[in-house]
């Protein structure tokens, strides 16, 4: 990655790789310098961090109402536009919310007063389509340095001795509140040390006037960051008081502690700020979207690659897990096959002792099974003929005319003539279970008996009807027989016409015929 340190007069490019922060090139703020900088950037595919260290900075604290995200963004943009003529390098930092019902938000606006001096550099960066991660002021990086140095006091002042002068950054609750830079004669260590001590006291008073400190003499922890050559003088000059608690930190030692094996010896503080920009990058920065466009494209591109790789890796991991299942199943298949072969061999050995069969055992089994089914579905007329004959023996007045014997299913009940003995429905398991599989129902052996009553007088309707009824009732008593489709000689119900001729000479009834069907379930 590349780190650009921009001051009012020049821009220094550093490269940070393998724990070495090295100066790549320096460019003066003139046409040649800008052109050389553009040439330096040409074709570069590195990430760039811009650290700006100039005098012209402005910090202003404000309070805005508690707002929704979109409204807040609009209000902040309007406030920045009202406060600064040029908003190309501005930012707003949230400092938290006030206690109270309205929950107003405390906001710090920060900007560089003279942005024109940066425009040539920013234009060169934009033209070269450089991936600019962000633009950071040294003040914005101060909280990172304080945190890394282990200073946890709520109010801290970072005093850093830099190439540009003496930078003072006031940090409260981890947020930058104010920063300024003063001129300094870096050649005289005693002067530097004295300036650190005196400027700290002066700044404290200034912060009180700005109402950034609640009371006078509010204690502040001051971290004085300077190169090794100033340490002795600083230790002598910076003596803690009730309100200023000094912590003198060797910038060279901090660089080494931060992991920098190599850094510019004359600018260890600058090196620390650059390192903080690269490794502890703050969430907020000054550059606008147009300057960071190619960085965003790089982010999208990386996101796409990452998503693709994530899906690929996920797919491969799932596949790997499933391949493990496949492996286990393959082992099981192999085991089953081995056992199958062994058992089959044993079974084959046993079957050699079986009696020889004229066909396969399966055919043999099917043949006998179906033959038994066939036997259940067949019957001889002998049984029903015998039962009719036995019953007939007790009724000499009844004479058979016809017997229609058949194998099948009982016909639907037709309108029975007479109604005395109504037809009896077949057994429930035969006709009452249509849901049963037809193949499982062997059916009935049925005999439709047509007979007549002989020797009765035509006029004796009651006698003829009683005789036929008794005959049918006797048949009904035979176990497992079902009676159906009964047709009596005369219809004595009120639904039909009953006609006769009492006193007629036609004494013998010729039409005293009746019929019924008897049935027995096959296989029963």
């Amino acid at each position, binding site marked *: 990655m590349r780190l650009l340190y921009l001051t009012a007069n020049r821009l220094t490019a550093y490269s940070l790789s393998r724990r070495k922060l090295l100066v790549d090139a320096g460019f003066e703020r003139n046409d040649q310098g800008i052109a050389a900088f553009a040439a330096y950037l040409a074709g570069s595919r590195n990430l760039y961090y811009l650290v700006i260290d100039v005098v012209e900075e402005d910090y202003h604290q404000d309070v805005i109402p508690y707002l929704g995200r979109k409204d807040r963004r609009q209000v902040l943009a309007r406030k920045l536009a009202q406060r600064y003529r040029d908003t190309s390098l501005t930012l707003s930092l949230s400092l938290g919310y006030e206690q109270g019902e309205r929950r107003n938000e405390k906001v710090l606006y920060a900007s560089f007063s003279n942005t024109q001096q940066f425009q040539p550099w920013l234009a060169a960066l934009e033209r070269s389509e450089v991936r600019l991660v962000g633009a950071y002021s040294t003040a914005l990086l101060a909280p990172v340095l304080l945190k890394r140095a282990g200073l946890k006091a709520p109010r801290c002042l970072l005093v850093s001795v830099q190439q540009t002068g003496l930078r003072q950054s006031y940090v409260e609750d981890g947020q930058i509140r104010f920063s300024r830079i003063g001129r300094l004669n870096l050649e005289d260590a005693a002067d530097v040390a004295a300036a650190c001590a005196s400027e700290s006291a002066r700044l404290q008073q200034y912060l009180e006037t700005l109402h950034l400190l609640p009371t006078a003499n509010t204690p502040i922890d001051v971290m004085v960051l300077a190169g090794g050559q100033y340490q002795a003088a600083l230790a002598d000059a910076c003596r803690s008081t009730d309100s200023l608690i000094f912590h003198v930190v060797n910038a060279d030692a901090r660089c080494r502690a931060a992991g920098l094996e190599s850094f510019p010896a004359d600018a260890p503080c600058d090196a620390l700020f650059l390192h903080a920009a690269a490794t502890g990058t703050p969430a907020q920065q000054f550059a606008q979207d147009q300057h960071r466009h190619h960085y965003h*494209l790089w982010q*999208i*591109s990386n996101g796409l*690659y990452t*998503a*693709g*790789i994530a*899906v*690929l890796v996920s*797919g*491969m991991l*799932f*596949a790997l897990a*499933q*391949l493990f*299942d496949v492996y286990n199943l*393959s082992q*099981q*298949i192999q085991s*089953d096959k081995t*056992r*199958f072969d062994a*058992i089959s061999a*044993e*079974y084959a050995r*046993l*079957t050699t002792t*079986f*009696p*020889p*069969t*004229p*066909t*396969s*055992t*399966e*055919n*043999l*089994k099917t*043949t*006998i099974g*179906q*033959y038994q089914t*066939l036997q259940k579905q*067949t*019957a*001889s*007329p*002998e049984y029903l003929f015998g039962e009719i*004959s036995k019953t007939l023996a007790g009724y000499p007045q009844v*004479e058979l*005319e*016809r*017997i*229609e014997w*058949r*194998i099948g299913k009982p016909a639907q009940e037709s309108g029975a003539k007479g109604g005395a003995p109504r037809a009896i429905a077949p057994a429930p398991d035969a006709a009452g279970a249509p849901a049963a599989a*037809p*193949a*499982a129902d062997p059916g009935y052996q049925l005999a439709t008996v047509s007979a007549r009553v002989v020797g009765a007088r035509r006029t004796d309707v009651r006698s003829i009807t009683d005789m036929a009824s008794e005959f049918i009732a006797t048949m009904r008593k035979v176990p497992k027989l079902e009676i159906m489709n009964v047709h009596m000689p005369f219809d004595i119900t009120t639904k039909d016409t009953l006609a006769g001729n009492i006193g007629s000479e036609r004494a013998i009834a010729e039409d005293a015929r009746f019929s019924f069907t008897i049935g027995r379930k096959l296989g029963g």
Partner: protein
Amino acid sequence: MKLGASDLKRLRLPIAASATLALAGVACYLAVDDYLLETTKLAAATTAQRIEVQSRLASANEEEREITANLQQYQALAARGIVGEEKRLDWIDAITAIKNERRLFNIGYSIEPQKELDYPGFAPRGGVRFVFSRVKLEMQLLHEEDLLNLIDDLAKRGRSYLSVRNCDVQRTERGGGTTLAPRLQAACIFDLITIRHDRPAPVPGGG
């Protein structure tokens, strides 16, 4: 951030690469998933085969007893001529012999072409087919017992399994004559059933 046409052009390669990688990942997963499904099916089938042969081995003695019992019945059917080709001439000879022995009146018959048996629960299964020829028989009877005797004799002597389907017996003459004249008219339908095997070759030891 707004993306322009030139930006989309720059992102063409990452988009294509991302899509390719994602597709490769999904394809990898789907391919192995399919392979796992096939292997699972194969494993289930192999296990079922192993369990089936295990079960057959465990019931080998029972199977031998069953084969022996089935074989005895089968041999009895074969001895009666029920297994194999239908022998119509034998059947006609049997009717003729019964008529003469029982001194029956004339018997008329017609035998229809052979068909697959279509009784409930019957369908060609394995190499076994049950076939039948429908016989229509008309005869005059002195007494209904003549019919029952004929059916009984045919069932015993016939070279097919006799399945009586229908018998219609009606009185033709009323009153008690003393001459030996037919008094009843019978019309019956029989099915002559035989069993055929598509693969009649003997199988020693079953299997």
